[in-house]
């Protein structure tokens, strides 16, 4: 009896440990994104699909697909003679919010941020 219980205990520990590992890897990606001021949501996308999502972009595969297309097109731009794309970040600016997008280590990071900028008032 005792030995069987011990065996089950070990297996459960192993699973718990594995789950913890996976959680840590994803959170390493997303921790920095969580802390961005005025962020409304984020996505981390790879060639295979969405790796992580949160906030207003949680499970938003449609937006992920559209932004991937835009990024693939944008990354083909080159200034004359350059070998790399001439930008670090792509911003899709809408009326009240902005999608800021970049690529790092084969992953596309998208953060939806509040856009509070308005027409400056001329007195």
């Amino acid at each position, binding site marked *: 009896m005792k030995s069987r219980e011990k065996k089950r205990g070990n297996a459960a520990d192993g699973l718990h440990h594995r789950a913890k590992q996976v959680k840590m890897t994803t959170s390493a990606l997303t921790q920095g994104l969580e*802390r*961005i001021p005025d962020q409304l949501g984020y996505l981390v996308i790879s*060639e295979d699909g969405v790796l992580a999502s949160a906030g207003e972009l949680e499970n938003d595969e449609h937006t992920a697909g559209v932004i991937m297309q835009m990024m693939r097109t944008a990354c083909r731009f080159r200034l004359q003679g350059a070998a790399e794309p001439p930008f670090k*970040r792509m*911003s899709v600016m809408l009326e009240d919010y902005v999608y800021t997008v970049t690529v*790092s280590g084969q*992953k596309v*990071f998208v953060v939806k941020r509040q856009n509070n900028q308005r027409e400056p008032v001329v007195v």
Partner: protein
Amino acid sequence: MGCCYSSENDTTEQDPEASKPLIPHPNPDSKPLNGTEWRSASVPSARKDEQALLTSILFKTALNIIDVSAADSQGMEQHEYMDKARQYSTKLALLSNSLSQKKPLPSLTSQPHQVLASDLVPYSDVQQVSKIAAYAYSAISQIKVDAKEELVVQFAIP
């Protein structure tokens, strides 16, 4: 519609057919055309060079020009059209597959969190870009064809 040219010789190969010129070479024996005056050197070899040049220019032009008023237009059977269309679409599918698998996305930064957290594009920049885009749009919409002459003419050879 592409290069659809059927000849009397039945060839099973498709590729040479696709690249055969539509118009037969107009001046195969390199005779100078009437009306062209070439001040060639007294040396006969120089004249041959010029004629060779002229012939090559004519040949290249003939390859690039599609004569819309061509006398004999050889049609193709319906099934040949279908076969060609199917062939082209499979070729296109192959090419587009290889194109999409090409390169992975380039890495834009090693600090994604920092890049995404930095200040947003200033409103004044957005306004300026919008203004420039509006100017460009207005300029492009004013592009139009100014037809001055007939498009198809007969060459007058005296």
